[in-house]
């Protein structure tokens, strides 16, 4: 189910391929024209690029063109213009060089073809006109508006003639002008600066783009109906599927147990491999084939699970969504190209869902691509977002719930501080949900070296110089993947300073982005929701001062930050830091809220905890204690 989104990524990625190093080049003008062409459209792109620096002559040596089974090259003009505008060289279509697939699937029919320009000189320009014919499976198109370098003039022209044309512009509104007079659509921009690459950007927001769609399927129910027609289920599950379902549910006493057994089989026995060949990038393989070969992608696994459920007497639906941290669907532009993932939605009552299961809108949401979790857990990259539940004319866009409390990473250091300030005790890592997956994979794969390395890195970044002993671990029962690791640890000189002036700087998990990347940020921020907590439990030597209890809390729509110092009943010094991130996507005012939390986290990380004797009820003006 990743073809459409992958196509968008590929197009954006092409921008990266060209612009990845050619940032000094200037696109003098770029025009993209879409015109109807039978059941598809023609896309004509004309580009003039000025080569400004020596670096540009290398990076623009090869101009990439993305082709596929449904994207055909119709015409090409590729010229090198000397400084005066004279055509110095031109590259005919027959000289194009094809160089393999794009993306990280097992196989993809997408092909990068390159125009191999001759040796280029600074001051020259490239003039490229590429016309491609697209035959998309659904009448929609994505046009990348920013190729990653400065653009003096941009014009995207969607000709009249696309019936029921509709569009969504994912771009800063102040930079682009839209004109819909004449029945078509024109998007223009002037003097677009070179976009700086920013971290933590959801893939769908990485590059400004225009998404257009046309045709009669203009609503989400219509898109769902289209999908049903494009990839219909067989009237009945095949006999092999029935046999398999019967075998798998033989011992299941309840509907949920049946759903669980079938889900576990698809999750654990059908390995994930993505193969995208033309329309096959959208249409699931027949379940019998998926069973036969033992592998499939998300849509294959979802379709197989649906068939197995059907065979077991439980009806469900394919649900299309845009997976990934911070990803979001533009709800005003119904189009299947917004989706990059498929899961399954089953009526909760029919499935016998529990209160703790991912249920919302009367549906139990199941991701057969996850390798763990059964029906009781969803990968956070699929939680808390809109999904299209495919159900013919009753298809609808519904919200997948967020599983509260399912994602957590905790680091606990519990032990004794000696007179010399050294610490000895136990470090414990508690991981739930997504944070647990990597640990579990390495532990169950017996990769002891990797586990030791990762644990050492985790602890030593918070307690420099820590020495670790033998690791013990255990996996918790339940649907949510969870693991606990424990290791003896000693930290030299955790507490520093002289009597009366002792201090320590307890490290903590810091999941938030650095405040500097949020300065003036407009592009949304992708976050990993959950709870990150660090706890220090320190038994201090007799006679040592302790700090007065203190607590700072910051709570806003994006999350919560807590920094607490307390004295336990047994006199131990208790230091707790927690960061709870409540959302996957921070944008608009949410960025300011996120910055607030990030600054608090940063300041706490810089601050020392001073061990002072009596009467220190008021901490100083700074956040250091």
């Amino acid at each position, binding site marked *: 189910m990743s073809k459409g989104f992958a196509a968008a990524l590929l197009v954006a990625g092409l921008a990266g391929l060209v612009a990845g190093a050619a940032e000094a080049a200037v696109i003098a003008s770029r025009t993209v024209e879409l015109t109807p062409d039978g059941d598809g459209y023609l896309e004509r792109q004309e580009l003039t690029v000025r080569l400004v620096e020596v670096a540009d002559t290398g990076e623009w040596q090869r101009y990439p063109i993305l082709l596929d089974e449904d994207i055909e090259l119709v015409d090409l003009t590729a010229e090198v213009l000397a400084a005066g505008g004279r055509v110095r060289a031109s590259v005919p279509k027959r000289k194009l060089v094809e160089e393999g697939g794009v993306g990280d699937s097992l196989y993809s029919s997408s092909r990068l073809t390159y125009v191999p320009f001759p040796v280029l000189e600074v001051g020259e320009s490239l003039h490229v006109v590429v016309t491609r014919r697209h035959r998309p499976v659904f009448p929609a198109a994505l046009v990348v508006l920013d190729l990653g370098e400065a653009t003096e003039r941009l014009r995207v022209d969607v000709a009249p003639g696309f019936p029921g044309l509709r569009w969504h512009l994912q771009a800063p509104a102040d930079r682009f002008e839209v004109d819909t007079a004449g029945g078509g659509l024109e998007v223009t921009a002037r003097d677009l600066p070179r976009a700086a690459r920013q971290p933590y950007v959801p893939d769908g927001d990485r590059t400004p783009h225009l998404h257009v769609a046309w045709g009669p399927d203009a609503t989400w129910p219509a898109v769902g109906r289209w999908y049903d027609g494009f990839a219909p289920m067989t009237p009945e599950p095949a006999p092999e599927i029935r046999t398999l379902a019967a075998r798998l549910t033989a011992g299941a006493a309840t509907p949920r147990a049946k759903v669980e057994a079938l889900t576990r089989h698809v999750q654990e026995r059908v390995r994930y491999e993505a193969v995208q060949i033309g329309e096959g990038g959208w249409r699931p393989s027949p379940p019998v084939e998926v069973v036969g070969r033992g592998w499939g992608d998300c849509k294959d696994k979802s379709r197989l699970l649906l068939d197995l459920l059907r065979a077991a007497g439980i009806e469900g639906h394919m649900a299309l969504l845009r997976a990934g941290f911070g990803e979001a669907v533009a709800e005003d532009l119904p189009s299947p190209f917004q989706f990059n993932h498929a899961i399954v939605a089953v009526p909760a009552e029919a499935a016998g869902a529990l209160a703790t299961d991912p249920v919302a809108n009367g549906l139990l949401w199941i991701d057969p691509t996850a390798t763990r979790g059964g029906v009781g857990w969803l990968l956070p990259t699929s939680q808390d977002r809109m999904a299209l539940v495919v159900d013919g004319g009753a298809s609808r866009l519904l919200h997948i719930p967020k599983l509260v409390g399912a994602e957590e990473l905790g680091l606990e250091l519990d032990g004794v501080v000696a007179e010399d300030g050294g610490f000895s005790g136990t470090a414990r890592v508690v991981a739930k949900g997504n944070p647990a997956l990597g640990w579990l994979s390495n532990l169950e794969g*017996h990769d002891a070296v990797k586990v030791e390395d990762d644990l050492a890195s985790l602890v030593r970044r918070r307690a420099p110089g820590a020495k670790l002993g033998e690791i013990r671990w255990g996996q918790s029962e339940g649907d949510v993947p969870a693991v606990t690791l424990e290791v003896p640890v000693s930290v030299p000189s955790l507490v520093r300073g002289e009597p009366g002036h002792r201090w320590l700087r307890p490290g903590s998990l810091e999941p938030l982005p*650095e405040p500097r990347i949020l300065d003036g940020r407009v592009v949304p921020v992708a976050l990993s929701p959950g709870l990150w907590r660090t706890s220090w439990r320190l038994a201090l030597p007799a006679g040592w001062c302790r700090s007065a209890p203190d607590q700072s809390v910051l709570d806003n729509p994006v999350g919560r930050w807590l920094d607490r110092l307390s004295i336990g009943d047994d006199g131990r010094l208790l230091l707790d830091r927690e960061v709870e991130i409540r959302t996957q996507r921070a944008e608009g005012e949410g960025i300011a809220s996120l910055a607030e939390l990030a600054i608090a986290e940063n300041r706490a990380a810089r601050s020392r905890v001073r061990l002072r004797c009596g009467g220190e009820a008021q901490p100083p003006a700074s956040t250091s204690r």
Partner: protein
Amino acid sequence: MFFRSNWWAVAVLGVFLTSLATLPASAKDWPEIPQSEKTLTQVPGFPEAPAVVLLRQGLLTIDPQGRSSSLDVYTRIKVLTEEGREYANGTIPSSNFWRLRGLEGRTHLPDGRIVPLGDDAKFVEEYSTLYKRRVHTFAMPEVQVGSIVEYRYRINFDTVLLAEPWYFQWSIPTLRSEITLDKPNNFGYAPYPLMPPGVQLETHVDNTPKSAQMTYALENQPPIPDEPARYPFEDLSSQIVFLPFEAIFSGQEVPLLKDWPRVVELFQGSGEEATYSRFRRKDHAARKRGKDLTAGLKTERDKAEALYRFVRDEIALLPTVGVEPGRRSADAVLGDKRGDQTEKALLLQAMLEGAGIDSSIVWTNPRSWGRVNPQIPNPYQFHGVLLAPEIGGERIFLDPSDRDLAFGALEPDYDGVQALLIDTKKPEWVTLPVSIADDNTRQAVVRLEVAEDGGVKGVGTLELRGAHAWQELDSARSEDDTVARWTKWLETRFSGYAIDGVTVDQDVEASRVTVRWQLALRPEEVLGDEVSLATAAPFTLRDNPFSLSPEKRRTPVRLSFPDSDRLELHVEWPEGWNIDAKPRVANLVNPLGRMVTELTVDGAKRSLVLTRRMDVTGTDLAGGAGYGQLHALYEMAQLSDAEPLVLVHE
């Protein structure tokens, strides 16, 4: 006829030959799987292994006419854990020269079912239209824990020269791997096994009137673990290579890869196969250009430098590997203004000749691709071609393929490697120049000033030299992008600081990069009455890449180059502020290097200077002691770099 080396075509897979003695009589039959393999659930000695190679067989059949030879490969793997399922996907490269035929496979399930590899699970992607380089991928069906997957295929090639090693080991344990060479009697082949001391190769030879089958096998081979900074796989795996040393046609002996003089003759001689000679047959324009470009230059060195820069900068690099040039001539490469590494070296040689300067072509191999073995007269173990002119009585090594290399500089991967000069009457082995830590330095000076309100601002300078500079130089990157890249780097190194005014001066000819910047603590980071400064930025080591304890390390270490990091941190503070916590100094010196910090405080001037120096002087750490020393240096660095300098307002 020679072929362009496709070492990767076989090195990735480890080429294996199927013994005729064990191949089924019919091409359709698959080998019987012993019960012991079906019941195997764990590999003795390697309980953590996710999968195991049960059997790898290969058969290399040499055509008596020397025209059409083949390689039959059979592989059988058992999946032992969930993570082992990844070994059920296969990848086979091919090209015009290595043509894949007849890929078949099947999965044996624990319940006894056998599922064939369908055509819908085989895919081909073409990576280069020029040589039809392709990658064939396949996904074995229904793989689960306990499954055994087996697959086989044939590679056809039109030469007798298969000079790629066969690797007996892989990243998972191997129970048995064997290779059989079936050679006609009119060809002489010499086997060159390379394996650790004490490892016994099983050998078997069958002779027939017209041919000989030589089988070599190893059993119970351990996996080659993937550890940070490990020696290249090519150095660690037991292997064997067969070299054709002679052919006999019509009673005449034709020496092939018999010894190094003969190998050089094959490239430089007058024969049809002498590709270097063919390249130089049309070099008049190149020599003339060399003469013209150096007219007016007085010294040999000036001439050589000018021509080196011309070939380096004006001839675009085509990405190919191996010592053979393409089919164009020197003049054609000059006219096209593009060529691969070998062609550029040969072109430069021709141009130098035009300027009256003699030189030798040098064959070598980047260290990260494996050691060269002078005992094996195999030209395909080389993947680097340099040029060595003699200037003023001194031999200088040049690599005109890299725009970021100064005249006489080589990339660190050639440091101290063995190389063969092939232009002399007798090929000569040399060792390429070795750099020392003082050649490859990062030197930073950071000056910080604490303000009354607890803010901090300052300036910094970072100078990179030698290999460090080379790593950062990129002629293909624009100036703006270079500044952006360094700004981002500095921002991550000085967490909490705003970085501004970054300038970058890149000097390829001096192998030097100089970065300057200004920095200021961001307002929201100012604590007011306390300032905590990181004492090692921008070199702070937050994660130790060598944290694995020495007793657990299994492979020798190879570092990229020896180097030295040197930091000078100057801090000044206003009246009313004092040092509340000083970083503890580090002082570790061992045979591999040092990690030393020093702190000098001038209370009267309210200033201090902290110096940090970390040297790593060795690169090849074959023994456990070396890794132990490296581990200790990095542990000390990580501990020391976490030490803060804290100033408080009184």
